[in-house]
Protein backbone atom coordinates (compact mmCIF):
# COMPACT_ATOMS: atom_id res chain seq x y z
CA UNK A 1 0.00 0.00 0.00
CA UNK A 2 1.37 3.43 -0.91
CA UNK A 3 0.92 6.38 1.38
CA UNK A 4 -0.92 8.97 -0.68
CA UNK A 5 0.00 11.82 1.69
CA UNK A 6 3.54 11.80 0.31
CA UNK A 7 2.44 12.09 -3.27
CA UNK A 8 1.12 15.66 -3.16
CA UNK A 9 -2.27 16.43 -4.68
CA UNK A 10 -4.52 13.43 -4.98
CA UNK A 11 -7.06 13.08 -7.78
CA UNK A 12 -10.66 13.38 -6.54
CA UNK A 13 -11.82 10.08 -5.14
CA UNK A 14 -8.27 8.78 -4.85
CA UNK A 15 -7.93 9.61 -1.16
CA UNK A 16 -11.41 8.30 -0.30
CA UNK A 17 -10.71 5.06 -2.10
CA UNK A 18 -7.52 4.68 -0.10
CA UNK A 19 -9.38 5.40 3.14
CA UNK A 20 -12.06 2.84 2.33
CA UNK A 21 -9.43 0.22 1.54
CA UNK A 22 -7.78 0.84 4.90
CA UNK A 23 -11.11 0.62 6.74
CA UNK A 24 -11.90 -2.69 5.04
CA UNK A 25 -8.45 -4.00 5.95
CA UNK A 26 -8.96 -3.10 9.61
CA UNK A 27 -12.42 -4.69 9.66
CA UNK A 28 -11.19 -7.91 8.08
CA UNK A 29 -8.31 -8.06 10.58
CA UNK A 30 -10.70 -7.61 13.52
CA UNK A 31 -13.08 -10.28 12.25
CA UNK A 32 -10.19 -12.65 11.61
CA UNK A 33 -8.91 -12.07 15.15
CA UNK A 34 -12.39 -12.83 16.50
CA UNK A 35 -12.67 -16.00 14.41
CA UNK A 36 -9.22 -17.15 15.55
CA UNK A 37 -10.01 -16.31 19.20
CA UNK A 38 -13.10 -18.53 18.97
CA UNK A 39 -11.33 -21.39 17.25
CA UNK A 40 -8.44 -21.28 19.76
CA UNK A 41 -10.94 -21.42 22.60
CA UNK A 42 -10.13 -17.94 23.99
CA UNK A 43 -13.75 -16.87 23.45
CA UNK A 44 -16.67 -19.16 24.28
CA UNK A 45 -18.50 -19.69 20.99
CA UNK A 46 -21.65 -20.40 22.97
CA UNK A 47 -21.93 -16.68 23.81
CA UNK A 48 -19.67 -15.19 21.15
CA UNK A 49 -20.40 -17.09 17.94
CA UNK A 50 -17.89 -17.39 15.10
CA UNK A 51 -18.11 -14.49 12.66
CA UNK A 52 -18.53 -17.12 9.99
CA UNK A 53 -21.50 -18.55 11.87
CA UNK A 54 -23.05 -15.09 12.04
CA UNK A 55 -22.53 -14.72 8.30
CA UNK A 56 -24.36 -17.98 7.78
CA UNK A 57 -27.01 -16.75 10.17
CA UNK A 58 -27.58 -13.69 7.97
CA UNK A 59 -28.21 -15.99 5.02
CA UNK A 60 -30.58 -18.10 7.09
CA UNK A 61 -32.63 -15.28 8.66
CA UNK A 62 -32.85 -13.14 5.53
CA UNK A 63 -33.00 -15.73 2.73
CA UNK A 64 -33.62 -19.39 3.49
CA UNK A 65 -35.98 -18.90 6.45
CA UNK A 66 -36.69 -15.22 5.80
CA UNK A 67 -38.28 -15.00 9.25
CA UNK A 68 -36.61 -11.70 10.24
CA UNK A 69 -38.55 -9.62 7.71
CA UNK A 70 -41.92 -9.28 9.51
CA UNK A 71 -40.12 -8.45 12.79
CA UNK A 72 -37.83 -5.93 11.12
CA UNK A 73 -40.79 -4.38 9.33
CA UNK A 74 -42.79 -4.10 12.54
CA UNK A 75 -39.97 -2.52 14.54
CA UNK A 76 -39.27 -0.05 11.74
CA UNK A 77 -42.96 0.83 11.50
CA UNK A 78 -43.15 1.43 15.26
CA UNK A 79 -40.04 3.61 15.16
CA UNK A 80 -41.19 5.62 12.17
CA UNK A 81 -44.78 6.12 13.32
CA UNK A 82 -43.73 6.93 16.89
CA UNK A 83 -41.03 9.31 15.71
CA UNK A 84 -43.29 11.17 13.31
CA UNK A 85 -46.18 11.45 15.75
CA UNK A 86 -44.02 12.26 18.79
CA UNK A 87 -41.82 14.89 17.15
CA UNK A 88 -44.76 16.48 15.32
CA UNK A 89 -46.59 16.77 18.62
CA UNK A 90 -43.47 18.14 20.33
CA UNK A 91 -42.86 20.79 17.66
CA UNK A 92 -46.53 21.77 17.44
CA UNK A 93 -46.88 22.16 21.19
CA UNK A 94 -43.61 24.12 21.41
CA UNK A 95 -44.86 26.49 18.71
CA UNK A 96 -48.08 27.09 20.66
CA UNK A 97 -46.16 27.60 23.88
CA UNK A 98 -43.58 29.81 22.17
CA UNK A 99 -46.23 32.08 20.71
CA UNK A 100 -48.32 32.40 23.86
CA UNK A 101 -46.26 33.71 26.76
CA UNK A 102 -48.85 32.86 29.38
CA UNK A 103 -49.03 29.22 28.32
CA UNK A 104 -45.25 29.00 28.63
CA UNK A 105 -45.29 30.11 32.24
CA UNK A 106 -47.95 27.61 33.30
CA UNK A 107 -46.64 24.69 31.29
CA UNK A 108 -42.97 25.00 32.18
CA UNK A 109 -43.01 23.19 35.59
CA UNK A 110 -44.82 20.21 34.08
CA UNK A 111 -42.35 19.99 31.26
CA UNK A 112 -39.40 20.06 33.64
CA UNK A 113 -40.86 17.31 35.85
CA UNK A 114 -41.77 15.17 32.86
CA UNK A 115 -38.33 15.69 31.35
CA UNK A 116 -36.66 14.61 34.57
CA UNK A 117 -38.71 11.41 34.65
CA UNK A 118 -36.99 8.50 32.85
CA UNK A 119 -39.32 7.97 29.91
CA UNK A 120 -39.04 4.22 29.97
CA UNK A 121 -40.39 4.11 33.54
CA UNK A 122 -43.80 4.88 32.08
CA UNK A 123 -43.35 1.98 29.62
CA UNK A 124 -45.14 -0.73 31.63
CA UNK A 125 -48.00 1.69 32.34
CA UNK A 126 -48.44 2.37 28.65
CA UNK A 127 -48.31 -1.34 27.84
CA UNK A 128 -50.95 -1.97 30.46
CA UNK A 129 -53.11 0.70 28.87
CA UNK A 130 -52.55 -0.13 25.18
CA UNK A 131 -51.83 -3.85 25.25
CA UNK A 132 -48.99 -5.98 23.87
CA UNK A 133 -49.39 -5.01 20.23
CA UNK A 134 -47.78 -2.31 18.12
CA UNK A 135 -49.92 0.53 19.53
CA UNK A 136 -48.25 0.46 22.93
CA UNK A 137 -44.78 0.32 21.29
CA UNK A 138 -45.61 3.23 19.04
CA UNK A 139 -46.92 5.15 22.03
CA UNK A 140 -43.66 4.55 23.92
CA UNK A 141 -41.58 5.65 20.93
CA UNK A 142 -43.81 8.71 20.69
CA UNK A 143 -43.11 9.55 24.30
CA UNK A 144 -39.38 9.08 23.80
CA UNK A 145 -39.47 11.26 20.67
CA UNK A 146 -41.54 14.07 22.15
CA UNK A 147 -39.17 15.95 24.43
CA UNK A 148 -36.06 16.73 22.41
CA UNK A 149 -38.02 18.38 19.56
CA UNK A 150 -40.28 20.13 22.07
CA UNK A 151 -37.46 21.59 24.18
CA UNK A 152 -35.29 22.48 21.19
CA UNK A 153 -38.11 24.13 19.26
CA UNK A 154 -39.03 26.21 22.29
CA UNK A 155 -35.40 27.20 22.90
CA UNK A 156 -34.94 28.09 19.26
CA UNK A 157 -38.01 30.30 19.19
CA UNK A 158 -37.27 32.03 22.48
CA UNK A 159 -33.64 32.56 21.43
CA UNK A 160 -34.41 34.75 18.41
CA UNK A 161 -32.43 38.02 18.66
CA UNK A 162 -34.71 40.75 20.05
CA UNK A 163 -33.34 43.21 17.46
CA UNK A 164 -34.67 40.98 14.69
CA UNK A 165 -38.07 40.88 16.32
CA UNK A 166 -37.96 44.70 16.57
CA UNK A 167 -37.02 44.89 12.91
CA UNK A 168 -40.06 42.80 11.93
CA UNK A 169 -42.26 44.97 14.12
CA UNK A 170 -40.89 48.15 12.59
CA UNK A 171 -41.76 46.75 9.15
CA UNK A 172 -45.33 46.27 10.31
CA UNK A 173 -45.17 42.46 10.13
CA UNK A 174 -48.13 40.49 11.50
CA UNK A 175 -47.70 37.83 14.19
CA UNK A 176 -48.09 35.10 11.59
CA UNK A 177 -45.51 36.71 9.28
CA UNK A 178 -43.05 37.09 12.14
CA UNK A 179 -43.56 33.44 13.02
CA UNK A 180 -43.25 32.10 9.47
CA UNK A 181 -40.46 34.30 8.22
CA UNK A 182 -38.41 34.77 11.42
CA UNK A 183 -39.16 32.52 14.40
CA UNK A 184 -39.56 29.20 12.61
CA UNK A 185 -36.54 29.44 10.30
CA UNK A 186 -34.41 30.82 13.17
CA UNK A 187 -35.34 27.81 15.26
CA UNK A 188 -34.76 25.35 12.41
CA UNK A 189 -31.15 24.43 13.31
CA UNK A 190 -32.23 23.60 16.85
CA UNK A 191 -35.37 21.81 15.69
CA UNK A 192 -33.27 19.70 13.36
CA UNK A 193 -30.87 18.85 16.20
CA UNK A 194 -33.86 17.90 18.33
CA UNK A 195 -35.16 15.62 15.60
CA UNK A 196 -31.79 13.91 15.39
CA UNK A 197 -31.76 13.33 19.15
CA UNK A 198 -35.31 11.99 19.01
CA UNK A 199 -34.54 9.64 16.15
CA UNK A 200 -31.44 8.37 17.93
CA UNK A 201 -33.49 7.39 20.97
CA UNK A 202 -36.48 6.12 18.98
CA UNK A 203 -34.87 2.82 18.04
CA UNK A 204 -33.73 2.18 21.59
CA UNK A 205 -37.19 3.08 22.89
CA UNK A 206 -38.90 0.63 20.57
CA UNK A 207 -36.50 -2.16 21.55
CA UNK A 208 -36.86 -1.65 25.28
CA UNK A 209 -40.63 -1.56 24.82
CA UNK A 210 -40.43 -4.86 22.98
CA UNK A 211 -38.23 -6.30 25.71
CA UNK A 212 -40.80 -5.36 28.35
CA UNK A 213 -43.68 -7.23 26.77
CA UNK A 214 -44.50 -7.95 23.19
CA UNK A 215 -45.34 -10.64 20.70
CA UNK A 216 -43.38 -9.44 17.69
CA UNK A 217 -40.48 -7.20 16.63
CA UNK A 218 -36.69 -7.40 16.63
CA UNK A 219 -36.59 -7.03 20.41
CA UNK A 220 -38.76 -10.13 20.79
CA UNK A 221 -36.62 -12.00 18.30
CA UNK A 222 -33.45 -11.16 20.23
CA UNK A 223 -35.05 -12.31 23.50
CA UNK A 224 -36.20 -15.58 21.94
CA UNK A 225 -32.87 -16.38 20.27
CA UNK A 226 -30.88 -15.53 23.40
CA UNK A 227 -33.26 -17.66 25.49
CA UNK A 228 -32.56 -20.67 23.30
CA UNK A 229 -28.83 -19.83 23.11
CA UNK A 230 -29.07 -19.38 19.36
CA UNK A 231 -26.40 -16.70 19.56
CA UNK A 232 -25.49 -16.40 15.91
CA UNK A 233 -29.12 -15.53 15.10
CA UNK A 234 -29.29 -13.09 18.01
CA UNK A 235 -26.15 -11.40 16.66
CA UNK A 236 -27.76 -11.15 13.24
CA UNK A 237 -30.59 -9.18 14.87
CA UNK A 238 -28.15 -6.93 16.79
CA UNK A 239 -26.09 -6.23 13.68
CA UNK A 240 -29.28 -5.53 11.75
CA UNK A 241 -30.10 -2.92 14.39
CA UNK A 242 -26.61 -1.44 14.06
CA UNK A 243 -27.13 -1.07 10.32
CA UNK A 244 -30.60 0.38 10.85
CA UNK A 245 -29.30 2.84 13.44
CA UNK A 246 -26.49 3.90 11.12
CA UNK A 247 -28.88 4.35 8.21
CA UNK A 248 -31.21 6.46 10.37
CA UNK A 249 -28.33 8.56 11.65
CA UNK A 250 -27.04 9.27 8.17
CA UNK A 251 -30.43 10.15 6.76
CA UNK A 252 -31.07 12.55 9.64
CA UNK A 253 -27.71 14.16 8.96
CA UNK A 254 -28.62 14.53 5.32
CA UNK A 255 -32.00 16.01 6.23
CA UNK A 256 -30.21 18.49 8.48
CA UNK A 257 -27.91 19.53 5.66
CA UNK A 258 -30.85 20.18 3.36
CA UNK A 259 -33.02 21.85 5.99
CA UNK A 260 -30.38 24.18 7.46
CA UNK A 261 -28.01 24.55 4.53
CA UNK A 262 -26.80 27.96 5.74
CA UNK A 263 -24.86 26.47 8.66
CA UNK A 264 -22.58 24.65 6.23
CA UNK A 265 -20.10 26.63 4.16
CA UNK A 266 -19.99 24.46 1.04
CA UNK A 267 -23.69 23.91 0.93
CA UNK A 268 -24.36 27.65 1.31
CA UNK A 269 -22.09 28.30 -1.66
CA UNK A 270 -23.91 25.69 -3.72
CA UNK A 271 -27.36 27.08 -2.88
CA UNK A 272 -26.04 30.56 -3.68
CA UNK A 273 -24.98 29.44 -7.17
CA UNK A 274 -28.36 27.78 -7.69
CA UNK A 275 -30.22 30.98 -6.77
CA UNK A 276 -28.11 32.97 -9.23
CA UNK A 277 -28.81 30.44 -11.99
CA UNK A 278 -32.56 30.52 -11.40
CA UNK A 279 -32.54 34.34 -11.41
CA UNK A 280 -30.73 34.31 -14.75
CA UNK A 281 -33.20 31.79 -16.15
CA UNK A 282 -36.09 34.02 -15.04
CA UNK A 283 -34.87 37.55 -15.53
CA UNK A 284 -32.33 37.24 -18.32
CA UNK A 285 -28.60 37.69 -18.02
CA UNK A 286 -28.43 40.99 -16.14
CA UNK A 287 -26.98 39.71 -12.88
Amino acid at each position, binding site marked *: MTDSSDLGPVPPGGRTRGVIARHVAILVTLLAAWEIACRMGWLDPLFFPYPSAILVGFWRLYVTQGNIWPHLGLTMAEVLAGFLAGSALGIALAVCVGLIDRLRRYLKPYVIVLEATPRIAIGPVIIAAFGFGWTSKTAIVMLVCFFAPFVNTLNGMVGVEP*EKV*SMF*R*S*MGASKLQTFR*KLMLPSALPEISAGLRLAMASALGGALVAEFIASNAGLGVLITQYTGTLNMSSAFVCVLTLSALGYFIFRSMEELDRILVFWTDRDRTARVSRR*RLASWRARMGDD*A
Partner: protein
Amino acid sequence: MSTHAQSAGPVDAALAGPAVIAARDLRKTFGGGSVVAVEDANFEIRPGEFISLVGPSGCGKSTLLRMVAGLLDRTSGSLTVHDAEVRGPHHSVAMMFQKPTLLDWRTSLENVLLPTEIAGRVTDADRHRAMDLLELAGLRDFAFSFPTQLSGGMQQRVALARLLQTGADILLLDEPFGALDEFTREHLNVELMRIVGEVNATTLFVTHNIAEAIFLADRVFVMTPRPGRIAGIVEVPFERPRPPSIQQGAEFNALVSRVRQTFGDRG
Protein backbone atom coordinates in the same frame (compact mmCIF):
# COMPACT_ATOMS: atom_id res chain seq x y z
CA MET B 1 -26.88 77.77 27.63
CA SER B 2 -25.31 79.32 24.56
CA THR B 3 -25.84 76.10 22.59
CA HIS B 4 -29.60 76.40 22.83
CA ALA B 5 -29.60 79.70 21.02
CA GLN B 6 -27.83 77.88 18.20
CA SER B 7 -30.98 75.95 17.25
CA ALA B 8 -32.48 79.09 15.71
CA GLY B 9 -29.41 79.61 13.55
CA PRO B 10 -29.19 80.39 9.84
CA VAL B 11 -29.24 76.77 8.57
CA ASP B 12 -32.49 76.10 10.38
CA ALA B 13 -34.11 79.07 8.73
CA ALA B 14 -32.84 77.98 5.32
CA LEU B 15 -34.60 74.61 5.57
CA ALA B 16 -38.12 75.72 4.86
CA GLY B 17 -41.31 73.68 4.95
CA PRO B 18 -43.30 71.91 7.64
CA ALA B 19 -41.68 69.60 10.16
CA VAL B 20 -41.54 65.90 9.23
CA ILE B 21 -40.96 64.90 12.83
CA ALA B 22 -41.98 67.11 15.76
CA ALA B 23 -41.71 66.47 19.49
CA ARG B 24 -43.29 68.59 22.20
CA ASP B 25 -42.46 67.90 25.85
CA LEU B 26 -41.80 64.31 24.82
CA ARG B 27 -41.11 62.20 27.88
CA LYS B 28 -40.34 58.55 28.54
CA THR B 29 -39.88 56.98 31.95
CA PHE B 30 -39.25 53.37 32.92
CA GLY B 31 -39.96 51.53 36.15
CA GLY B 32 -43.05 53.53 37.05
CA GLY B 33 -41.30 56.88 36.67
CA SER B 34 -38.16 56.06 38.66
CA VAL B 35 -35.88 56.17 35.60
CA VAL B 36 -36.29 59.12 33.25
CA ALA B 37 -34.98 57.91 29.88
CA VAL B 38 -36.05 60.97 27.91
CA GLU B 39 -36.99 64.22 29.64
CA ASP B 40 -39.16 66.82 27.93
CA ALA B 41 -37.63 66.70 24.47
CA ASN B 42 -38.64 69.49 22.10
CA PHE B 43 -37.52 69.54 18.47
CA GLU B 44 -38.67 69.84 14.87
CA ILE B 45 -37.02 68.04 11.97
CA ARG B 46 -37.46 69.30 8.38
CA PRO B 47 -37.74 67.18 5.21
CA GLY B 48 -34.40 65.89 3.97
CA GLU B 49 -32.53 66.88 7.12
CA PHE B 50 -29.80 64.64 8.53
CA ILE B 51 -29.82 64.70 12.33
CA SER B 52 -27.24 63.02 14.54
CA LEU B 53 -28.12 62.10 18.10
CA VAL B 54 -24.88 61.95 20.02
CA GLY B 55 -24.25 61.14 23.66
CA PRO B 56 -22.86 58.55 26.07
CA SER B 57 -24.69 55.29 26.62
CA GLY B 58 -27.76 55.68 28.80
CA CYS B 59 -28.57 59.17 27.56
CA GLY B 60 -31.83 58.01 26.00
CA LYS B 61 -30.85 58.40 22.34
CA SER B 62 -31.92 54.87 21.41
CA THR B 63 -35.11 55.29 23.42
CA LEU B 64 -35.89 58.46 21.49
CA LEU B 65 -35.27 56.66 18.20
CA ARG B 66 -37.48 53.74 19.17
CA MET B 67 -40.30 56.11 20.06
CA VAL B 68 -40.07 57.72 16.61
CA ALA B 69 -40.09 54.20 15.08
CA GLY B 70 -43.27 53.43 17.01
CA LEU B 71 -41.57 50.54 18.80
CA LEU B 72 -41.90 52.21 22.22
CA ASP B 73 -44.83 54.13 23.69
CA ARG B 74 -44.18 57.57 25.15
CA THR B 75 -45.07 58.39 28.73
CA SER B 76 -46.31 61.91 28.00
CA GLY B 77 -46.00 64.76 25.53
CA SER B 78 -46.55 64.77 21.83
CA LEU B 79 -44.62 63.12 18.98
CA THR B 80 -45.80 63.53 15.40
CA VAL B 81 -44.56 62.08 12.12
CA HIS B 82 -46.02 63.77 9.03
CA ASP B 83 -48.38 65.66 11.36
CA ALA B 84 -49.89 62.48 12.81
CA GLU B 85 -49.30 61.29 16.36
CA VAL B 86 -47.08 58.19 16.45
CA ARG B 87 -49.14 55.22 17.62
CA GLY B 88 -47.03 52.32 16.41
CA PRO B 89 -44.81 51.30 13.49
CA HIS B 90 -45.53 53.43 10.42
CA HIS B 91 -44.76 52.69 6.77
CA SER B 92 -43.05 56.04 6.27
CA VAL B 93 -40.49 55.22 8.98
CA ALA B 94 -37.84 52.50 8.69
CA MET B 95 -35.18 51.53 11.17
CA MET B 96 -31.71 50.02 10.99
CA PHE B 97 -29.96 48.42 13.95
CA GLN B 98 -26.42 48.03 15.22
CA LYS B 99 -26.46 44.38 14.23
CA PRO B 100 -27.20 43.70 10.55
CA THR B 101 -30.29 41.63 11.57
CA LEU B 102 -30.13 39.78 8.26
CA LEU B 103 -31.86 36.43 7.89
CA ASP B 104 -29.16 33.80 7.36
CA TRP B 105 -31.32 31.61 5.15
CA ARG B 106 -31.93 34.38 2.62
CA THR B 107 -29.60 35.74 -0.05
CA SER B 108 -28.79 39.47 -0.03
CA LEU B 109 -31.49 40.01 -2.64
CA GLU B 110 -34.08 38.03 -0.68
CA ASN B 111 -33.15 39.95 2.48
CA VAL B 112 -33.62 43.26 0.69
CA LEU B 113 -37.01 42.05 -0.57
CA LEU B 114 -38.24 41.20 2.94
CA PRO B 115 -40.08 44.51 3.56
CA THR B 116 -41.86 44.16 0.21
CA GLU B 117 -42.86 40.58 1.07
CA ILE B 118 -44.25 41.72 4.40
CA ALA B 119 -46.21 44.53 2.76
CA GLY B 120 -47.71 42.25 0.08
CA ARG B 121 -46.84 40.47 -3.16
CA VAL B 122 -43.38 40.73 -4.70
CA THR B 123 -43.39 41.71 -8.39
CA ASP B 124 -40.57 41.65 -10.91
CA ALA B 125 -40.47 45.44 -10.62
CA ASP B 126 -39.75 45.04 -6.89
CA ARG B 127 -36.99 42.57 -7.69
CA HIS B 128 -35.37 44.97 -10.13
CA ARG B 129 -35.65 47.80 -7.61
CA ALA B 130 -34.00 45.62 -4.96
CA MET B 131 -31.22 44.85 -7.45
CA ASP B 132 -30.78 48.59 -8.10
CA LEU B 133 -30.55 49.27 -4.35
CA LEU B 134 -27.92 46.56 -3.97
CA GLU B 135 -26.06 48.25 -6.80
CA LEU B 136 -26.39 51.59 -4.97
CA ALA B 137 -24.90 49.90 -1.90
CA GLY B 138 -22.09 48.52 -4.07
CA LEU B 139 -23.18 44.91 -3.70
CA ARG B 140 -24.56 43.90 -7.08
CA ASP B 141 -22.02 41.08 -7.38
CA PHE B 142 -23.11 39.72 -4.01
CA ALA B 143 -26.87 39.75 -4.61
CA PHE B 144 -27.00 35.95 -4.42
CA SER B 145 -24.58 35.52 -1.54
CA PHE B 146 -25.82 34.49 1.87
CA PRO B 147 -25.03 36.62 4.96
CA THR B 148 -22.50 34.05 6.25
CA GLN B 149 -20.53 34.57 3.03
CA LEU B 150 -20.29 38.35 3.59
CA SER B 151 -18.07 40.51 5.83
CA GLY B 152 -19.62 42.56 8.63
CA GLY B 153 -19.41 45.73 6.55
CA MET B 154 -21.08 44.09 3.56
CA GLN B 155 -23.83 42.73 5.80
CA GLN B 156 -24.60 46.26 6.99
CA ARG B 157 -24.71 47.43 3.37
CA VAL B 158 -27.36 44.78 2.69
CA ALA B 159 -29.25 46.03 5.75
CA LEU B 160 -28.96 49.56 4.34
CA ALA B 161 -30.36 48.45 0.97
CA ARG B 162 -33.20 46.71 2.82
CA LEU B 163 -33.85 49.93 4.75
CA LEU B 164 -34.24 51.80 1.46
CA GLN B 165 -36.40 49.05 -0.07
CA THR B 166 -39.09 49.87 2.52
CA GLY B 167 -39.69 53.08 0.58
CA ALA B 168 -39.80 55.00 3.86
CA ASP B 169 -38.85 58.69 3.68
CA ILE B 170 -37.70 58.74 7.30
CA LEU B 171 -34.68 56.59 8.12
CA LEU B 172 -33.69 55.79 11.69
CA LEU B 173 -30.20 54.41 12.20
CA ASP B 174 -29.22 53.12 15.64
CA GLU B 175 -25.40 53.04 15.67
CA PRO B 176 -25.51 51.15 12.38
CA PHE B 177 -21.75 50.82 11.97
CA GLY B 178 -20.86 50.73 15.66
CA ALA B 179 -19.78 47.09 15.58
CA LEU B 180 -17.42 47.56 12.62
CA ASP B 181 -13.75 48.47 12.57
CA GLU B 182 -12.69 52.14 12.23
CA PHE B 183 -11.73 51.96 8.53
CA THR B 184 -14.87 50.18 7.39
CA ARG B 185 -16.97 52.52 9.48
CA GLU B 186 -15.45 55.67 7.97
CA HIS B 187 -15.92 54.26 4.49
CA LEU B 188 -19.53 53.31 5.13
CA ASN B 189 -20.27 56.75 6.60
CA VAL B 190 -19.18 58.36 3.33
CA GLU B 191 -21.33 55.85 1.43
CA LEU B 192 -24.27 56.51 3.73
CA MET B 193 -24.04 60.23 3.14
CA ARG B 194 -24.01 59.70 -0.64
CA ILE B 195 -26.92 57.21 -0.61
CA VAL B 196 -29.12 59.20 1.77
CA GLY B 197 -28.48 62.28 -0.37
CA GLU B 198 -29.51 60.40 -3.50
CA VAL B 199 -32.83 59.18 -2.11
CA ASN B 200 -33.36 62.50 -0.27
CA ALA B 201 -34.53 60.90 2.97
CA THR B 202 -34.92 62.51 6.38
CA THR B 203 -32.44 60.74 8.64
CA LEU B 204 -31.96 60.28 12.36
CA PHE B 205 -28.58 58.80 13.16
CA VAL B 206 -27.63 57.64 16.66
CA THR B 207 -23.96 57.45 17.62
CA HIS B 208 -21.63 57.98 20.54
CA ASN B 209 -18.84 59.19 18.28
CA ILE B 210 -18.73 63.00 18.19
CA ALA B 211 -16.68 63.35 14.97
CA GLU B 212 -18.93 60.90 13.15
CA ALA B 213 -22.03 62.75 14.36
CA ILE B 214 -20.76 66.09 13.06
CA PHE B 215 -19.34 64.69 9.82
CA LEU B 216 -22.70 63.27 8.74
CA ALA B 217 -25.28 65.72 10.06
CA ASP B 218 -26.93 69.03 9.30
CA ARG B 219 -27.67 69.35 12.99
CA VAL B 220 -26.32 67.46 15.99
CA PHE B 221 -28.60 66.84 18.95
CA VAL B 222 -26.30 66.54 21.96
CA MET B 223 -27.82 64.32 24.62
CA THR B 224 -26.78 63.89 28.25
CA PRO B 225 -27.77 61.13 30.69
CA ARG B 226 -29.63 60.94 34.01
CA PRO B 227 -32.13 62.23 33.15
CA GLY B 228 -31.78 61.71 29.40
CA ARG B 229 -32.27 65.05 27.70
CA ILE B 230 -31.27 67.07 24.67
CA ALA B 231 -28.74 69.44 26.23
CA GLY B 232 -28.05 71.36 23.07
CA ILE B 233 -28.32 71.46 19.30
CA VAL B 234 -25.24 72.22 17.17
CA GLU B 235 -25.63 73.37 13.56
CA VAL B 236 -23.14 71.99 11.03
CA PRO B 237 -22.71 74.59 8.28
CA PHE B 238 -21.09 72.35 5.62
CA GLU B 239 -22.81 71.32 2.38
CA ARG B 240 -23.55 67.61 1.95
CA PRO B 241 -22.05 65.40 0.60
CA ARG B 242 -18.73 66.22 2.26
CA PRO B 243 -15.26 64.76 1.78
CA PRO B 244 -13.75 63.01 4.84
CA SER B 245 -10.93 65.57 4.69
CA ILE B 246 -13.13 68.29 6.23
CA GLN B 247 -12.58 66.50 9.52
CA GLN B 248 -9.06 67.95 9.61
CA GLY B 249 -10.24 71.55 9.24
CA ALA B 250 -10.22 74.14 12.03
CA GLU B 251 -13.92 74.82 11.59
CA PHE B 252 -14.69 71.12 12.13
CA ASN B 253 -12.55 71.06 15.25
CA ALA B 254 -14.39 74.10 16.58
CA LEU B 255 -17.66 72.17 16.18
CA VAL B 256 -16.19 69.19 18.04
CA SER B 257 -15.20 71.54 20.89
CA ARG B 258 -18.68 73.00 20.95
CA VAL B 259 -20.29 69.55 21.29
CA ARG B 260 -17.79 68.68 24.03
CA GLN B 261 -18.61 71.94 25.81
CA THR B 262 -22.29 71.01 25.80
CA PHE B 263 -21.42 67.79 27.62
CA GLY B 264 -19.15 69.82 29.91
CA ASP B 265 -21.87 72.33 30.75
CA ARG B 266 -23.65 69.60 32.57
CA GLY B 267 -20.62 68.67 34.63
